[in-house]
């Protein structure tokens, strides 16, 4: 069994108005030195296969097909074995 964490983020070239609004909030209580706030998604899942390569292949396919829209987003992920 493997546990995957997929991080989906907007491409750097895409304006993130949500991140900008949160950045304004951070600045409003004094942390002026915080910049480039961007908001993304974390998606976790368990995958019941026997080897890590296969788990990674599956996560990549799922990410490309569904979890991220590659027109506007990029993704990266980690896969770790779960000890029973």
């Amino acid at each position, binding site marked *: 069994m493997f546990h995957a964490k997929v991080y989906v983020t907007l491409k750097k070239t*895409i*304006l993130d*108005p*949500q991140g900008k*609004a949160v950045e304004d909030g951070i600045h409003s209580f004094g942390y002026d030195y915080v910049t480039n706030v961007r908001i993304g*998604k974390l998606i976790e899942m368990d995958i019941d296969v026997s080897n890590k390569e296969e788990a990674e292949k599956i996560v990549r396919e799922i990410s490309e097909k*569904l*979890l991220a*829209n590659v*027109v*506007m987003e990029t993704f990266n992920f980690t896969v770790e074995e779960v000890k029973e």
Partner: protein
Amino acid sequence: MKKVKFGIVVFPGSNCDHDAHYVAGEIMNQDAKLIWHKETSVGDVDVIILPGGFSYGDYLRCGAIARFSPIMKDVVRFAKRGGLVIGICNGFQILTEAGLLPGVLLRNKSLLFVCKYVFLRVENAYTKFTSACKQGDILEIPVAHGEGNYYTDPETLKRLEDNGQIVFRYCDKNGNITDEANPNGSLNNIAGIINEEGNILGMMPHPERAADPILGHTDGRKIFESIIQNVTTSQVIVNFVAERS
């Protein structure tokens, strides 16, 4: 005269399906049927409407899950065969997620849900969805969305512009394309685009909400009239890119 058969797909969370059904059936006096998303065939229809709403609660991304609904396989088959498909609002988002139209609809630049009447300039009146309009006509049709900010990469944008695939742009009441008239931050004020073959249209504004005179505006009827004209007459616009040049 032969009636045009409209099929309106109903996803869990669609909420403009009955409006579209009412306008096609009652206002335009055509045949209209609702198609549940679990169906695997669209059946005998001339045109498919993917309606507005919040399919699957907009979970993950707008339209991202709806494109995997069982009916979508047959919608894609219908579209690839040249069948007319119009995606309105959430329907437009589904068409981009399904890869039937290029680009994506991002969160509105303002972060606000925008619900109001806007003006649209008809940029291409040589399509099967706009042939009842004149080039440059200004239509007053409402928008209602939180994610309508059209984005695509520069090469695709250039191709859309060069091919005349941008069908509607947000404008002011005199037809000027300005930042103030842009409700969501869309690139080049894009409100609606069509595929290269000319049979798949996606638009954020809601023509079905501007069709019943009781609601005050009827400009949206032009879209339905165009579709009906093109299905019922032998007048076939084969290639609008060629027609324009």
